[in-house]
């Protein structure tokens, strides 16, 4: 049977694919009549076209065409004859047994004088964008009429084209449909910060008044129902082809999907409801009886760098508002009048709570708005449909289903749901879901040891075990894995086991420790010399520049206030480090689960606000704790006054100067669940501070779980318990912890210098054992922004 589809936009394309997937025996032969001369493309990401993304990259049309389907591009339908059941184009007549209208919508141009002037455009198709770009070349000013979602996007596009941009919106504030006055005011401040002028509450009567080189109308859209009207099909009260909840139009075998459809009189300008309609009609045309359930109007997008998210209803009987102009974050929750049910809401500036809130629409509030805005997501009591793993879009119910059918530990859940196999930052959340499901989780490190990391630490220490083989022989089974070998390597190193590449330890090291460098995606390494507290002399800066230049390395400043050199092949590492060590540098341990850096601000050495010498302290602490291996990496910082320019409270331990000494904060972190460090002790003398940090670190090294950062560890122990152990010596461990740190400080040797002085270790730094002078032929570079970067024919993530 013959099916004619008018329109190959996003929803028209989705419909063709949905039908092809269901119409297995090819009952329908499909003819698609498309007005534009290109196949369907991603209109949601349209503005990416001005950020270097090509039209080809935006296409939604998969290679090849489903069998029995033909696409006639640039061949718009001009008439539909319902009686004859025929669609006419300028050249042909196409009889149909079924007709699907997917004509989308057109940009609405307000009734403004001279709206058809040559410098006026709309912002809807790639051809529009090509025309805008051509016209904008060499021009200076641009005005966008309309301050809604599309208007902000068009403003960003003009900004990317180098114009001075002004937005004119006739409503009292930006995004009037999604955001209320307060939210609009906050959005306006964020947009003005990008030096885009905003004039609200102003209508436009004549384009000439705007006095701009380029004008873009982004004042909303109108369903394209001209074909339907001309053919006699019923249309909605505000335009659009009138259809029922199965998307059936008013004539037999005629359907409408996407923005052109008025479902029970309502048109939808979002792609998600359009896709849902496409699926319904595809099902109907292959014998199904599905209907459209109320479309989800949630959207989350980034406009001009600002996160904006709306979900469910935007107005309701009761509003809870969170407005923080200082950090540029606004949130409004719409509740039922008894405040028991979440009806919808709006987030501006920070949308991290969006997944939890969106999943909770129609149900109880998952937490107070203040908590949600602070922590981003309330893991406990997370609704089943909340997304747990964003890499693979795995929801809580997916995980619980996996648990129900017997996958009761992390590796099994990973294998079954793929959750946690991407970046892995949701693994702790998976563990809490297991706990929530009442699964007694064994604390065993892995299949090879029935003990936790802390228990293994005590066994190694008490029995004086020196090697992995000795340990696995005594209390383990098999020959280990990527969980226990690095953990045991870290324990041996923490207990002064000598150089980590000595003897059998060399076979235990994790990916980066393996060659004392950070492995990159193409098999090359990065090199990070230590720069204590970020303080460096001009001469040493020059040495880093010369080494990078001579070995053709890519250089970048790191988050830890030092310089990272990328692109070193394994066999080059010794020569690079010889140059650095000779110039007085040493290993920066960027590769180890160890202390990384103690960042600093210049403090009272230079700064007029500084109250203590933060740089001096930071240098001393970094040199004290350098090389200290631990359950996970350790980051620290010292700020010279309460302004906290070194961001100490985002660190495992952070120190902030006071008039009388130092405040010590612990357990801060960035990552999956950002957390500000908590104040442990205040107004400490430097000597007391060092003693307490010694004990804090050593106690962490001995008792934390594998790959557990201090933020989680401190959270579990509690500050009072920690203070009791460290200050009041409640466990009688103080002397032991102090001695252990003293041993670490006295025994420190630069790992890289030790490798350079040891031929046995040096011998391993080769490309090939049987061809040491031949580099890995698959490694090659291209140039980007004047620096070498990997040529990405290889090295893509699974």
């Amino acid at each position, binding site marked *: 049977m013959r099916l004619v589809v008018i329109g190959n936009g996003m929803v028209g394309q989705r419909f063709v694919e949905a039908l092809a997937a269901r119409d297995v025996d090819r009952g329908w032969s499909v003819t698609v009549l498309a007005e534009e001369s290109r196949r369907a493309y991603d209109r949601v990401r349209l503005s990416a076209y001005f950020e270097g993304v090509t039209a080809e990259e935006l296409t939604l049309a998969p290679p090849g065409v489903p069998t029995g389907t033909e696409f006639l591009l640039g061949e718009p339908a001009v008439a539909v004859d319902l009686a004859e059941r025929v669609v006419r184009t300028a050249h042909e007549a196409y009889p149909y047994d079924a007709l699907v209208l997917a004509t989308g919508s057109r940009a609405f141009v307000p009734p403004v004088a001279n709206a058809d002037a040559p410098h006026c455009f709309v912002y809807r198709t790639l051809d529009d964008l090509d025309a805008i770009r051509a016209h904008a070349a060499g021009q200076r000013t641009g005005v966008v009429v309309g301050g809604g979602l599309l208007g902000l996007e068009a403003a960003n596009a003009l900004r990317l084209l180098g114009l001075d941009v002004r937005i004119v919106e006739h409503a009292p504030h930006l995004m009037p449909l999604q955001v209320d006055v307060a939210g609009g005011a906050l959005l306006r401040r964020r947009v003005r910060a990008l030096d885009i002028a905003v004039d609200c509450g102003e209508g436009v009567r004549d384009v000439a008044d705007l006095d701009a080189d380029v004008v873009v109308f982004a004042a909303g859209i109108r369903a394209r129902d001209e074909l339907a009207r001309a053919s006699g099909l019923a249309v909605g009260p505000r335009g659009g082809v009138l259809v029922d909840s199965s998307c059936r139009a008013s004539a037999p075998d005629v359907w409408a999907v996407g923005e052109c459809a008025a479902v029970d009189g309502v048109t939808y300008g979002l792609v998600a409801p359009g896709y849902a309609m496409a699926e319904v009609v595809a099902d109907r045309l292959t014998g199904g009886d599905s209907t459209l359930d109320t479309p989800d109007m949630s959207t989350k997008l980034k406009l001009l760098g600002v996160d904006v998210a709306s979900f469910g209803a935007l107005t309701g009987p009761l509003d809870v508002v969170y407005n923080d102009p200082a950090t540029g974050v606004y949130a409004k929750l719409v509740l039922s009048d008894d405040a028991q049910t979440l009806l919808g809401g709006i987030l501006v500036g920070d949308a991290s709570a969006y997944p939890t809130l969106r999943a909770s629409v129609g149900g109880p509030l998952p937490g107070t708005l203040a908590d949600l805005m602070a922590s981003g997501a309330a893991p406990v009591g997370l609704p089943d449909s909340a997304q747990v793993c964003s890499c693979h879009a795995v929801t809580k119910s997916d995980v619980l289903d996996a648990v129900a059918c017997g996958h009761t530990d992390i590796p099994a859940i990973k294998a079954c749901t793929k959750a946690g196999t991407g970046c892995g930052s949701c693994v702790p959340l998976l563990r809490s879901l297991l706990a929530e499901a009442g699964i007694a989780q064994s604390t065993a490190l892995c299949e090879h040891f029935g003990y936790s990391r802390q228990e293994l630490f005590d066994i190694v220490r008490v029995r004086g075990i020196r090697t992995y083989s000795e340990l696995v022989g005594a209390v383990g089974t098999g020959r280990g*894995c990527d969980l226990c070998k690095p953990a045991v390597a870290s324990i041996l190193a923490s207990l002064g086991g000598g150089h980590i590449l000595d003897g059998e330890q060399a076979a235990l090291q994790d990916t980066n420790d393996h060659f004392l460098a950070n492995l990159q995606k193409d098999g090359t390494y990065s090199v990070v010399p230590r720069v204590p507290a970020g303080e460096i002399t001009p001469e040493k800066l020059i040495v880093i520049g010369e080494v990078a230049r001579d070995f053709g390395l890519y250089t970048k400043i790191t988050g830890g206030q030092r310089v990272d050199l990328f692109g070193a092949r394994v066999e080059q590492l010794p020569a690079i480090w010889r140059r650095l060590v000779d110039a007085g540098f040493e290993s920066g341990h960027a590769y180890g689960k160890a202390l990384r850096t103690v960042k600093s601000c210049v403090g009272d050495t230079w700064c007029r606000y500084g109250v203590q010498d933060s740089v001096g302290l930071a240098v001393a602490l970094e040199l004290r704790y350098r090389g200290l291996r631990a359950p996970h990496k350790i980051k620290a910082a010292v700020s010279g006054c309460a302004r906290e320019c070194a961001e100490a409270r985002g660190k495992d331990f952070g120190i902030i100067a006071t008039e009388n000494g130092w405040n010590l904060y612990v357990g801060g972190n960035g990552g999956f669940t950002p957390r500000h460090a908590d104040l442990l002790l205040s107004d400490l003398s430097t000597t007391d501070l060092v003693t307490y940090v010694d004990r804090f670190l050593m106690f962490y090294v001995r008792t934390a779980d594998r790959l557990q950062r201090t933020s989680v560890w401190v959270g579990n122990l509690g500050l009072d318990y920690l203070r009791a152990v460290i200050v009041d010596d409640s466990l009688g461990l103080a002397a032991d912890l102090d001695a252990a740190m003293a041993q670490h400080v006295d025994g420190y040797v630069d790992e890289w210098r030790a490798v350079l002085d040891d031929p046995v270790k040096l011998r391993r730094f080769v490309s090939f*054992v049987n061809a040491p002078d031949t580099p890995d032929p698959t490694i090659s570079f291209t140039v980007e922004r004047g620096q070498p970067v990997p040529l990405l024919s290889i090295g893509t993530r699974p």
Partner: protein
Amino acid sequence: MTVTWTAICRLDHLLPERGAAALLGDTQVAVFRLHDDQLYAIGNGDPLSGAQVLSRGIVGTRGEVPVVLSPMHKQAFDLRTGACLDVPGVGVPVYPARCRDGLIEVAVP
């Protein structure tokens, strides 16, 4: 089918359970000496990340199976068959390896 063996290095040149890479023609091979001196040789390219790094992975066991864990994203590869235990249908080539008069030899077609 005659097999040509190529010597790549001395047995005691390899540390138990720490692999090494060898180049035979344009074939990159990852060679492993286990704790009981058994020898294995597999393709050095990690099929999932595309980088030539398997020789740098941690060696261990999964159940009874001797494996190497890719240093990139820790998928396990059976040293005997080259099969990836974490991603069905993915694997690496396996090459015969032996020790003759203290020299490790590998046969690459």
